[in-house]
C-alpha cells in the first residue's frame, strides 16, 4: 500500500530533497508550510502541481511549529506513516538574537509533534524522525563525535535542539513510539539558505567574478566543519525509519575542512587562486592569480574580509562526525565528496549570478539582497 509521509519544514533545503526522494519512492507526501506574504515554495515548485488538479502526490498544508492546534489538526487529517520533523529556526547566529522563537519553534515544535502523535493514538502507526544536529556537541569533548559523545551546546539553537533530542528519546522510551534522532553534521547544496556560510561563499564569489559585488564578508574563517551533501543526508533520514527498531544516528562524512578551505576550493572552481594575509579580525584574501571566468580580476584585489559582526558570541570551533553506526546498521554512506559539493554549489551560484548580470545589463535592476 502507498505510504504517506508528513514533512514539517518542507520548504527548506532538506524538506525539498526529502520530498523529491519520497515521491520517487511512491509516497504520498504532505508538507507543512508557514503562511508568509511572499511565495516561499521556490525549492519545491518543480514538484508541486496546481491544487485544482486531481491525483496529486504532494499536498501542502498551512501550519506553524508554534501552533499546537494547527499541527494537531494536520497530523489528524494526514494520518501519516512517517513524520519528518525538519522545521526549525535553523540559523545558529540568529538564535542569539531570537532565543525565544528558537526555543518555541525548535524545542517545543518537536514536543508538539510528538504530543500530537501520542494524543491522537498514532503511536502504533506513525514513525517519527527528529532532525537533530552536530551543534549539540558544541564545545566537543572528543574527536570525532559519535552517538556516545556527551553534548555541550553553545547557542540557543543548540540548547533548543538538545531539548528536542531528549524529548524524542523520552517519547520513545516512555511511550514506545518509533522515534529517531538523526544527528546530522553540516549538509549543504545549491538549495542551502543564502545566509549560511557555504552559500554566502559560493554566491559571493560568483557575484564578485561577474562584477555584481566587490568583496565577501565572513565571520570565523578558522571554524572547521564536516560538510556533506543534503541529498545524501535525506536518504539517511528515510533509512532510519525503515529499521526494525528505532535508534539515534550520527550522519556525517568524517572529513573536516575549515571555512577558509571552503573559500579556497570554491575560488578554484572559478579559476581563482587566493592568498591569505593578516590574522584574526584583519585576515583577508586577495587575488593571487585569475583565469577563466575570473580572468578580469586584478591580482592584489581584496575579495574576502572578516566582519566581526558575523562572529558568534560563543564559537563552535571544530566538528567532525563518526558515522560508523549508520554505516553498519543502515548501510548508509555519503556519495558526494567535498570537492564535488563545492563544485556543484559554485556552478549553481555562477548560473544565478549570470542571470542577475544579464537582467542588469538589459536595464532591469538586479536585486541586491543583502543580509
Amino acid at each position, binding site marked *: 500500500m502507498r505510504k504517506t509521509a508528513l514533512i514539517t519544514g518542507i520548504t527548506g533545503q532538506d524538506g525539498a530533497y526529502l520530498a523529491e526522494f519520497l515521491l520517487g519512492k511512491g509516497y504520498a507526501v504532505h508538507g507543512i508550510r508557514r503562511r508568509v506574504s511572499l511565495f516561499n515554495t521556490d525549492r519545491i515548485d518543480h514538484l508541486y502541481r496546481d491544487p485544482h488538479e486531481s491525483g496529486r502526490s504532494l499536498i501542502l498544508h498551512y501550519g506553524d511549529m508554534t501552533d499546537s492546534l494547527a499541527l494537531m489538526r494536520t497530523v489528524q487529517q494526514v494520518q501519516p506513516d512517517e513524520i519528518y520533523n525538519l522545521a526549525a529556526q535553523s540559523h545558529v547566529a540568529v538564535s542569539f538574537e531570537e532565543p525565544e522563537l528558537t526555543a518555541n519553534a525548535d*524545542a517545543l515544535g518537536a*514536543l508538539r509533534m510528538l504530543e500530537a502523535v501520542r494524543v491522537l493514538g498514532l503511536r502504533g502507526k506513525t514513525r517519527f524522525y527528529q532532525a537533530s544536529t552536530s551543534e549539540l556537541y558544541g564545545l566537543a569533548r572528543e574527536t570525532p563525535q559519535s552517538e556516545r559523545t556527551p553534548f555541550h551546546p553553545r547557542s540557543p539553537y543548540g540548547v533548543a535542539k538538545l531539548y528536542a533530542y531528549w524529548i524524542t528519546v523520552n517519547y520513545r522510551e516512555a511511550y514506545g513510539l518509533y522515534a529517531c534522532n538523526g544527528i546530522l553534521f553540516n549538509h549543504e547544496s545549491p538549495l542551502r539558505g543564502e545566509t549560511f556560510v557555504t552559500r554566502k561563499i559560493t554566491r559571493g564569489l560568483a557575484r564578485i567574478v561577474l562584477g555584481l559585488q566587490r568583496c565577501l564578508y565572513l565571520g570565523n574563517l578558522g571554524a572547521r566543519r564536516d560538510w556533506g551533501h543534503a541529498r545524501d543526508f535525506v536518504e539517511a533520514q528515510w533509512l532510519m525509519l525503515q529499521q526494525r527498531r528505532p535508534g539515534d544516528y550520527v550522519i556525517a562524512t568524517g572529513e573536516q575542512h575549515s571555512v577558509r578551505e571552503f573559500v579556497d576550493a570554491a575560488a578554484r572552481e572559478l579559476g581563482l587562486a587566493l592568498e591569505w594575509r593578516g590574522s584574526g579580525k584583519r585576515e583577508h584574501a586577495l587575488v593571487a592569480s585569475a583565469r577563466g571566468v575570473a580572468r578580469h580580476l586584478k591580482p592584489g584585489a581584496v575579495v574576502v574580509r572578516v566582519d566581526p559582526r558575523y562572529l558568534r558570541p560563543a564559537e563552535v570551533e571544530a566538528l567532525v562526525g563518526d558515522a560508523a553506526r549508520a554505516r553498519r546498521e543502515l548501510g548508509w554512506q555519503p556519495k558526494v565528496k567535498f570537492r564535488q559539493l563545492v563544485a556543484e554549489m559554485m556552478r549553481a551560484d555562477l548560473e544565478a549570478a549570470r542571470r542577475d548580470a544579464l537582467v542588469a545589463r538589459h536595464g532591469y535592476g538586479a536585486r541586491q539582497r543583502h543580509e
Partner: protein
Amino acid sequence: MKRALVCGISGQDGAYLAALLLDRGYEVVGTSRDAAANRFAGLQALGLRERVRLVSMRPGELHSVEQVIERARPDEIYNLAGQSSAALSFEQPLETFESVAAGTLNLLEALRRSGRAARLFSAGSSDCFGDTGAGVADEQTPFRPASPYAVAKAAAFWSVAGYREAHGLWACTGILFNHESPLRPERFVTKKIVAAACRIARGSRERLRLGTLAIVRDWGWAPDYVEAMWRLLQPQAPRDYVVATGKPCSLEDFVAHAFAALGLDWREHVDVEPALARPSDPQRVCGDPGRIARDLGWRAQCTMPELVDRLLAVESRACV
C-alpha cells in the same frame, strides 16, 4: 544591605532560602505566579511571611520577568520557580517547558538586557542524569534525562552555561539531588511515608502503598541545600556544582527506619504495588559532592538516617 530576588519563593526551597537570606541581613523579594492568591504556606510555617516582599511574576513571560528585576534591583537572583514534578510533566510537558526552560531563558535574557551585575543561581536537578547505575554522578557526567521535566531542566542548565560563556553573565547551576523537609507536600514519597507511619503509630489501620522499595536515592536536608545555593553565588567566578550528600540509601531502608523509629515493623504495614511505580523512574540516583566540598567547603550536615528522625519529629508534633 544586599538585595536578593527569590523566584519561586512559595516552594519548600524558597521558604528555607528566605530564612537563610534574612538571617544574613538580606532584603528579600520573592515571586510567585500570583502573589495575591498564594498562601505561601512554607513562609507562613517559618513565620517569615511578613518579612519578605512578595510580587507576582510569570517566568514564561519575558516582560513580567524584566519588570520584576527592574523593580527589585537585586544583587543576587535565585531561580527556583517552575513546575517541579517529574510525574506531572508527562501530563503537562508544555507547561513544564514553559516554566522551567523558557522561564530560565527569560531570566537570563532579562538579566542580560538589564545590564545589572547581579549574580544568578539556577536550581538544576539530578533528574538530568537519569539512572546513575553503579556509579555516581559528578559535574562531568553526561546527562540522560528521562522525563519531560528532566529534559526541560537539562535545557535550562545549558542555557545558563550558554549565557555565561557567550555573554559573560555571572550565572551558575546547582545540580540538586533530592532534598527533603517537613515543607514537602504529600505527593513526595518521603512525606507520604513519614505521614503514614505517624498515623499508623497513633492507631490508624491504614496500609502504606508504595510502587517499589528497590530504588536508591541520595536524600539530603533542604535547609542544607539552600546554604549550598547561597555559597554558589559567593566565589569570584561562577561554576556549576553537584549538590548531594554522597550517601545513597534505598527506599526500603528509608521506610524501615521510619517505622522502626516509631517502634513498628514496616513489613506489617507496607504493601508494594508495582502498578504505582513510574515506568521511567530511575533505579539508582547517586551524586558525588566532591567539587563543592573542595571548592566551597560545603557538606551535607544532615543525612540518613538522621533525616528521617527530623521529619518524624515534626510530623508527630503535627499529628498530635
